[in-house]
């Protein structure tokens, strides 16, 4: 056990050295860390925090297009449209999946804040669409009933 701890300390030390020596681009490293945190978060609040916000405000300007009842949880079409000006990012979260965050999109200027994709859902759950605009977070929610789960089998 002690041995392992030693190795761990050594490893982190080496990594810190590499970072300080500029071998690992520090910013990229920080971004990667933030990304992992966001994808590992289990709840809406945790995810928003991992993305750099504090809380998300309910908004009627976000429209989620998803079926009320999805027959197959492995393929649930979800579209999110935001009418909030300066929308920078759109995130799709499935509340009851093991990790909430399913997908995040970066919207550069000139691109419509309207994306569609398909996600997996383990069970009936709320789907949250989180929008980042002017560095503030907004959220809209829609419940999707799943008759056949999409995770596991």
């Amino acid at each position, binding site marked *: 056990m002690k041995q392992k701890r030693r190795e761990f300390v050594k490893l982190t030390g080496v990594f810190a050295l590499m970072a300080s020596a500029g071998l690992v681009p520090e910013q990229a490293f920080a971004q990667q860390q933030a990304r992992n945190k966001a*994808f590992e978060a289990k709840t809406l609040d945790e995810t928003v925090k991992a993305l750099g916000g504090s809380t998300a405000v309910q908004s009627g300007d976000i429209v989620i297009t998803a079926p009320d009842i999805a027959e197959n949880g492995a393929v649930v079409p979800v579209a999110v449209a935001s009418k909030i000006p300066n929308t920078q990012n759109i995130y799709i979260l499935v509340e009851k999946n093991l990790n909430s965050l399913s*997908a995040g999109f970066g919207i550069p200027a000139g691109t419509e804040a309207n994306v569609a*994709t398909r*996600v997996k859902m383990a069970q009936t759950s709320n789907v949250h669409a989180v929008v980042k605009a002017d560095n503030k977070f907004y959220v809209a929610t829609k419940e999707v009933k799943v008759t056949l789960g999409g995770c596991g089998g």
Partner: protein
Amino acid sequence: MADPMRIRATEQSDGVDVRVLMSHEMETGQRRDSAGNLVPAHYISNVTVTHNGKQVLGAEWGPAVAKNPYLQFKFKGGKKGEKLTVTWVDNKGDTRTDEATIN
């Protein structure tokens, strides 16, 4: 190497409508095979779409995006005949880039 993506980009009155269908397993890392071993996660983690050297969409995905991912969005400033490039990278470092012409 993965199969090519199917990309359709059409010019409409209010911008270019882009639809992409990628071919990927999108393993969650939670499934078990018949022997009871976990199937390791294998999913597309990043997607970028560029037009004339300018990024028009970036996406970060987790394993909860459905198998053979589908993506649709719309951007302004594209014209018929111009090229559009879509690139994805998965968590094992595999990558694929495909090009399509706007029509």
